[in-house]
């Protein structure tokens, strides 16, 4: 048992574990909406567009976490707004303007970071540094989770209707546009929360893998929502331990653990797994073509 408890002796590990559990659960629960609304590419673009905001905040306020938080928020909102403006006022479609803006804003972020007077390690924001969580980081993660989770749970019904049948939702008087914006806003917030843990590039893994896993195992949306949260939480914590024991980068280990859980479900899920499906088809084949 000692090997299991040993990591907890370090304060940085306690903090990291707490952060992992919160971020993992929040992103995991949110991932149900990302997967079903097919927002994966949108989420990726948003995550990358956080970088220039972080860079500007660094230039203006130094390493203060509240500054970084607002910088990232403003950058994400500007890119989201820019996408709407460009696709709304020209013949350029939404996916094209999204791709264009996120590549540009990510590049702008890299350029700005090179001007930063403080010695800033770019990889810190690209790939996260969960072992270096400060109190203020934990507070931000905590407050964001406290906001995102209840709102998602509260608006589950209308959001499910919007995802399943937007037109029927509109008929029933649901504010489709407003709730879609709310979902995007919550997406940006939880991405900011995971910025410290896994960084802008790996954040996508936490936002997709948990619900994609449950999607292969269950036909219930609440299962995807809460189960996604649980898988996100346990997967992230497990990934953190693995990175501690093997002395590997923590963000990458977290995402790899979540990916591993997904592949196990992909292969073995009794309901929609690849192998059980193959077996069923084979049984069916033998069952119907045999001599009667």
């Amino acid at each position, binding site marked *: 048992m000692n090997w299991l408890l040993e990591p907890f002796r370090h304060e940085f590990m306690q903090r990291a574990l707490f952060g992992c559990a919160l971020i993992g659960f929040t992103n995991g629960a949110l991932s149900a909406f990302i997967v079903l609304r097919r927002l994966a590419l949108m989420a990726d673009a948003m995550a990358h567009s956080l970088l220039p905001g972080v860079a500007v905040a660094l230039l203006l306020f130094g390493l203060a976490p509240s500054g970084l938080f607002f910088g990232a928020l403003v950058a994400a909102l500007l890119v989201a707004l820019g996408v709407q403006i460009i696709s709304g006022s020209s013949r350029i479609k939404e996916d094209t303007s999204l791709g264009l803006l996120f590549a540009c804003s990510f590049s702008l972020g890299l350029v700005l970071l090179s001007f930063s007077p403080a010695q800033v390690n770019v990889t810190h924001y690209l790939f996260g540094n969960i072992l270096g969580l400060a109190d203020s980081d934990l507070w931000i993660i905590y407050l964001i989770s406290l906001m995102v989770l209840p709102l998602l749970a509260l608006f589950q019904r209308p959001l499910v*209707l919007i995802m399943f049948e937007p*037109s029927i939702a509109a008929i029933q008087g649901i504010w489709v546009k407003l709730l879609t914006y709310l979902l995007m806003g919550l997406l940006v917030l939880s991405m900011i929360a995971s910025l410290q843990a896994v960084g802008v590039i790996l954040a996508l893994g936490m936002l997709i893998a948990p619900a994609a896993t449950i999607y292969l195992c*269950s036909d219930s949306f609440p299962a995807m929502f809460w189960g996604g949260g649980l898988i996100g939480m346990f997967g992230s914590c497990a990934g953190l331990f693995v990175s501690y024991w093997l002395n590997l980068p923590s963000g990458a280990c977290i995402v790899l653990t979540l990916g591993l859980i997904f592949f196990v479900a992909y292969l073995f899920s009794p309901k929609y797994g690849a192998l059980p499906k193959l077996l069923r088809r084979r049984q069916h084949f033998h069952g119907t073509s045999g001599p009667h």
Partner: protein
Amino acid sequence: MLHQLVIKDLTVAYRRVPAVHHLNLVLSCGHRVGLLGPNGAGKTSLFKALVGLVPLATGSVNFGGHGKTPAAAEIAYLPQRSAVDWDFPVTVRGLVEMGRYQRLSWWRPFAQEDARAVEDALSTIGLNDLADRQISALSGGQQQRAFIARSLAQNAHVFLLDEPFAGLDRPAQDLLGDTIRRLAEKGNLVIAAHHDLKTVPELFDQVIFLNRKLIGFGDTTETFTEENIAGTFDTPVLSGATDSLGR
């Protein structure tokens, strides 16, 4: 009280191009109405206008004289099967439960009354045994009936079905036809966009001929004529479709 769906001078337009012109119709509950017309005749546009999904360029829609705009819960629109994400993680029961969402708004918990309404809808439509199946694991006809069950749970009185018989085999068609007949007998109004003219007389007791404007409306026995078919579909397609009326 006899409920009526009253459509007065209804025009629907997309980018100022009218899809349906100045339509006047009075439909009474208790009927099975076939909405007939070629592709692009404005059938789906009419449905969308009736539920308030597209704005009315002119005219009004009244149901039962209740109000200016129809109460969303009373008119149920069932989209074409191709418009549904069948891989969505929802079971038949979950789908029917969605019919209660509007009544519950976004926060009120599911009460016994709601559970009963869901079970009633499932048994009316005969899907109790399949209630825990995911919706893609149903046949085409069962999928249509599952959506009808949801509208029942919603307490709808008017059912707008967009090509419900498309792609169904004969037994499934008969079963869905029975379901529609029973809905009408219970005092509901069922309007179905339909393209297979051969089956019109057995499925519907009233028909609407629509091709951007109203060509004809009335009891199937009187209105479902070669002349109206030719006038709606431009060419006398499927001549002989009215033979089954015995004329």
